[in-house]
C-alpha cells in the first residue's frame, strides 16, 4: 500500500496542484507556491526502489524506480526542483499558463520515469510532450507560435512513430513489464527503427533536431533549462526501455547509431557556431551533447552483456550534462557579465561541458570512452570523440563571449548558484556511490589536449572573425520542411476545392417537371384523347395477346 502511494504521489500531486490553479484566490496562490516543491516527491520512489502494481488502472499500470531510470530521477528531482525555485520569483507574466505547463510536464515525466509497463511509459511520455508545448509557447509571440507549431508537429510525429513500434511489441506480447521486454520479444528491424526514430526527436538527433533551436529562445528561462536539461533525456529513456541492450537484433543497429551520434555531435557544433543568439547556441550545444549520449547508447547496444556495467557511466553523462546545461540556461537571464562571481558561475559549467580536466565533463568523457572500448569500437572513433571535445569547447567559447553581453537581473538567484554547485558535485557523488573508476590520472592528458587545440584554433582565427560565418537561420533545415509543408497544404486545398463542387440547383428542374406533368394531364384529360387512349391500349393488349 505504501509503495503504491509513494510511487503514485510524484505523478498525482503535480496534477492536483495544477488543477488548483484553476480556482482564483487561495487555491491558486497555494498552487503556485507548492509547485516548485513537487519534484522532490521523486526522491521517495528512488529511495524506496520497490514496485507497485495497479491492476485496475490504465492497462495494468506498474510503477517503480529501477536502475535504468535512477540517474534521470535524480536529475529530474534536482534540476527541475531548482529551476522551479528560480521560476517562482522570476516568472511574472501568464503564471497560470507557465505553471500548468510546468506541473503537467512534471507529472508526465514522473510517470515516464516510474512506469514499469509499456502503456504507462507511453502515457507519461505523451503527457510530457504535449505539456512541454505549453512551456514553449508561453510568450505567445509570432516566434513562439511558430516554434510551438514546429515542435508539436515533430513531437507528435515522433510519438506516433514510437507508438507504431511499441504497438508491434504489444501485438506480440501484450502490455508486459518493461523489465521482461529484452527477452520477450523479437522485433523486426523496421519497427525497431521506428521506435528509435520516434524517441530521437526528443533527443534532437540530426535531422530531427530542428525544433530545439527554435524552442529554446522563446521559452522562459527556467523552462529552457529543464527542456534541455531533463526533457530531452526522456528520449534516451525511451530508447533504453523499448530497445534495451540485449534485445534480439539490437546489436545490429549499434554501428549505424554510432555514426549518427558522431554526425550529430559535429553538426550541432558547426551550426551552433553560426548563431548569434545565446539560447540558440546553447540549444545546438545540447544537440551536440545528445549526439554523444547516442554514441554511449549505441555502445551499450553493441556490447549487451556489459550494458549493466555501462549504465552508471551513462548516468554520469546524463547528470553532468543536465545539471550543467540547466545552469547555463539560468545564467542567460542573470547578466553574467556583471560581476566576477557571476562570471565564475558561468565559467564552471562551460568548462565542465567542454570536458576540461578534473571536471564532471571529464568524467562523462571517460565514461563514454569506456563504453566505446567495451563495445570494441575501433580506435579511430575515440580520436573523433576527442575532436568533439574540441568542437564543444569552441562552441562554448562562442557562447561565453555572447553571454557576457546579456542583460538580466541584478542579483544572482540562489537557485542558479545551487544548480552550478549541483553540477559540480552531484556527478562525483554518483560516481562514488556506484563505485566507478574515474580514471583520474589516465584521463588527464586526453582531456587536456582537445582544449589546447581549441584554444589554439581560437587564437588563430582571431576570435572567429565574422567573415566566414554563413547566415543560417536557427533551425536550419526547418525552413525547407516548412516550405514543403506549405506546398503540400496548397495541393490538398486545391484537391479539396475540386472535390467540394456545389450541388446543382434542382429547383428549376422541379418547376419544369411540374409544368410538364400538369400539361400532360390536361391534354389527356380531354375526352377525345382519353377515348383514343382507351382504344389504343385495348388494341395493344389485343395485339400482344394475339402474338403470344
Amino acid at each position, binding site marked *: 500500500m505504501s509503495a503504491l502511494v509513494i510511487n503514485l504521489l510524484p505523478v498525482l500531486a503535480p496534477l492536483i496542484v495544477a488543477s488548483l490553479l484553476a480556482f482564483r484566490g487561495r487555491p491558486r496562490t497555494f498552487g503556485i507556491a507548492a509547485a516548485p516543491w513537487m519534484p522532490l516527491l521523486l526522491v521517495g520512489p528512488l529511495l524506496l526502489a520497490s514496485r507497485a502494481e495497479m491492476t485496475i488502472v490504465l492497462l495494468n499500470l506498474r510503477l517503480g524506480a529501477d536502475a535504468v531510470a535512477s540517474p534521470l530521477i535524480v536529475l529530474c528531482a534536482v534540476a527541475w526542483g531548482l529551476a522551479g525555485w528560480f521560476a517562482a520569483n522570476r516568472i511574472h507574466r501568464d503564471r497560470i499558463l507557465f505553471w500548468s505547463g510546468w506541473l503537467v510536464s512534471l507529472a508526465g515525466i514522473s510517470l515516464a520515469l516510474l512506469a514499469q509497463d509499456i502503456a504507462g511509459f507511453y502515457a507519461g511520455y505523451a503527457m510530457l510532450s504535449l505539456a512541454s508545448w505549453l512551456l514553449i509557447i508561453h510568450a505567445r509571440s509570432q516566434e513562439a507560435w511558430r516554434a510551438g507549431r514546429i515542435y508539436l508537429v515533430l513531437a507528435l510525429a515522433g510519438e506516433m512513430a514510437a507508438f507504431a513500434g511499441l504497438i508491434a511489441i504489444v501485438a506480440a506480447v501484450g502490455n508486459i513489464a518493461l523489465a521482461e521486454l529484452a527477452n520477450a520479444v523479437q522485433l523486426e528491424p523496421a519497427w525497431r527503427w521506428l521506435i528509435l526514430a520516434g524517441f530521437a526527436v526528443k533527443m534532437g538527433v540530426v535531422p530531427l533536431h530542428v525544433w530545439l533551436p527554435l524552442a529554446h529562445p522563446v521559452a522562459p528561462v527556467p523552462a529552457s533549462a529543464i527542456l534541455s536539461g531533463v526533457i530531452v533525456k526522456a528520449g534516451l529513456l525511451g530508447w533504453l526501455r523499448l530497445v534495451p541492450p540485449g534485445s534480439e537484433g539490437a546489436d545490429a543497429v549499434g554501428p549505424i547509431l554510432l555514426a549518427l551520434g558522431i554526425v550529430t555531435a559535429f553538426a550541432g557544433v558547426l551550426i551552433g557556431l553560426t548563431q548569434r543568439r545565446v539560447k540558440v547556441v546553447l540549444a545546438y550545444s545540447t544537440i551536440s551533447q545528445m549526439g554523444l549520449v547516442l554514441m554511449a547508447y549505441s555502445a551499450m547496444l553493441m556490447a549487451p552483456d556489459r550494458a549493466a556495467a555501462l549504465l552508471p557511466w551513462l548516468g554520469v553523462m546524463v547528470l553532468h550534462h543536465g545539471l550543467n546545461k540547466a545552469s547555463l540556461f539560468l545564467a542567460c537571464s542573470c547578466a553574467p557579465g556583471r560581476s566576477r562571481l557571476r562570471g565564475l558561475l558561468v565559467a564552471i559549467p562551460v568548462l565542465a561541458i567542454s570536458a576540461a580536466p578534473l571536471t564532471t565533463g571529464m568524467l562523462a568523457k571517460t565514461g563514454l570512452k569506456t563504453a566505446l572500448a567495451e563495445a570494441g569500437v575501433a580506435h579511430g572513433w575515440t580520436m573523433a570523440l576527442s575532436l568533439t571535445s574540441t568542437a564543444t569547447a569552441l562552441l562554448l567559447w562562442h557562447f561565453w563571449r555572447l553571454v557576457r553581453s546579456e542583460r538580466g537581473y541584478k542579483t544572482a538567484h540562489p537557485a542558479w548558484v545551487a544548480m552550478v554547485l549541483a553540477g559540480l558535485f552531484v556527478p562525483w557523488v554518483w560516481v562514488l556511490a556506484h563505485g566507478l573508476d574515474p580514471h583520474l590520472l589516465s584521463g588527464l592528458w586526453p582531456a587536456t589536449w582537445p582544449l589546447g587545440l581549441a584554444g589554439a584554433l581560437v587564437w588563430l582565427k582571431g576570435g572567429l572573425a565574422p567573415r566566414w560565418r554563413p547566415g543560417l537561420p536557427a533551425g536550419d533545415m526547418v525552413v525547407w520542411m516548412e516550405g514543403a509543408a506549405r506546398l503540400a497544404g496548397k495541393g490538398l486545398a486545391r484537391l479539396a476545392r475540386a472535390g467540394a463542387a456545389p450541388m446543382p440547383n434542382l429547383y428549376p428542374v422541379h418547376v419544369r417537371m411540374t409544368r410538364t406533368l400538369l400539361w400532360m394531364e390536361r391534354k389527356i*384529360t380531354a375526352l377525345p384523347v382519353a377515348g383514343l387512349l382507351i382504344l389504343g391500349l385495348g388494341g395493344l393488349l389485343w395485339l400482344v395477346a394475339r402474338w*403470344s
Partner: protein
Amino acid sequence: MKAYDTLMLALVFIPLGTALIAVMLPPTRRRWAVLLGGLAWPCVLVPLSLAIAREQTLTLVFGGWSPPLGIGWRLDALGLVVLWVHALVGIAALPGAWQRFEPEKPESGPFWSLWLILATGVNLATLAADLFNLYVALELTTLAAVALIATDDGIAALSAAMRYLLLAVLGSLMYVLGVGLVYAQTGSLAMHQPGVVELNNVALVLMLTGLMVKAAIFPLHVWLPHAYSNAPGPVAAIMSAVVGKVALVALWRIWFETAVDPPMLLANLLGLIGAGAIVYGAVAAYLQPRLKMVIAYSSISQFGFLLLLLPLACQQAFQGAGFHLLAHGLAKASMFLAAANIVTVLGSDSIRHLPGLDKRMPLEAFTLALAGITLIGLPPSGGFTGKWMLLSAAWEVQGWFWMVLIVLSGLMSAAYIFRILALTCFHPARRAVHHLHARPPKITSFAALLLALLAVVIGLYPHPVLDLLGSGVPGAGP
C-alpha cells in the same frame, strides 16, 4: 346453408331496401333508414367470416338452377376482404357524411339513397358469380358514384362527374361487348368454372380494358384525380377504398378463374402497365399543389400494385395483393376523411395552407402520418406485410424486375408522403388562415384516425387475414 343464404342476401338487399325507403320516408324519419342501411349489413359480416374460415366459399343459387344455367352468387375469401374494407370504411365515413348531409334536411334524401345504392352495387359486384351480374353491379356502382360526386357544390364537381360518367360508360360498353362475345361463343357466362368458358383474345382484351378504365389504371386514369378531389370527403373515401377495387378484383377473377391459360406475355405487359402506374402516380403525387390531388394520385400509384398480381401469379402474390388491398383501402380512406376535415376547417386543401396544421388539427396530421407509413410500406404496418408478400412472390418466380420495382416504390411513396408531412408539421405557419366553417365534430377525426391505426395494426397481426387469403387462392399459380 340456408342461414348463410339469408346473410348473403342481406348483404345486398339491406342497403338496397334502405335506399328505397330513405327516399320514401319523410326527412325526420330518414335517419333510421340511413342508420339501418349503414350499420346493419356490416354486422352480417361477422358470421359470414366465420363461415368462410370454415368452408372457403359460400355459394347461393337462385331458383335452384345452378350455373351455367342460373344466376348464382359466390362469396370467397377475397370477396370477404373487400366486404370488410367496405364495411369499415363505410362506418368510418358515416359521421362525416352525416355531418355534411344531415338526413333531416330535405335535400339530403338523394344523397343517402345514392350512398346506399353505391353500397349495394359494391356488395353485389363482390358477390357476383357470372359476368352479366357483374356488369349490372358495376353499372350500379358507377352511376351511384357519378351522382355522389356531383352532390358537391361547384362546377368542378359537376365536370369531374361528367367526365367520370362518360369514361366509365365507355368502359362499361367495352366490357359488355366482351361479355356479349363470350356469350355468343360459349353460351355461358359463369365466371368461376375455368375451362368452361373459352375466351378468345378479343373478348378478354375488351373486358380487361373496360375494367381498367373503371379501375383508373394509368394511362386510363384521367377521370380519377378530379373525381376524387372534387367529391365530398366521405364519398372520396368510399370510392378510393372500394369502388376502384371491385373493378380490379373483377379483373383478377376474369384473368385467373375465367380465362383459360392467359398468355404470360400479356401478363407481363399488364404488369408493366402496373409498374407505369406506380411510377407515374408517385411522381405526379409529389408535384401536386393540392392535398386531395396528392392523395388521388397516390391512389393511382397504389392501384398499380394490384396489377402486379398478374405476372406474379402464385399463392404469396395473391396473399400479398389481397392484403395490400385491405391495408391500402383503410389507409387511403382515412387520408381522404382527414383531408375532408382539413378542407372544412381551412376552406381549401392547397398545400400553401398546410403549415402549422399539426397545431390546429393534430389528430388529422397524425392520421396523415400513420396512413403515410402504411403507404410507404414501413414495417410493421399493413403496407409492409403486403409488400413483403409480393416481394416473396417475386423471389419465388425469380422476377427481379418486380422485386426492384416493389422495393423502389417504397422510396417513391416516401417522397410525396414526407413532402406532405414536412409541410404540415415542420414548416412555420405562414399566415393566419380564417376558419370558414364550424369545426368538424371530433368523431370524424377519430374515425379517420382509427382507420389509419387499423391499417398499421393489421400489419402487426396479419395471420387471420393471410390465412384466409391463403386458403382461397383462385385456382392460379404453382
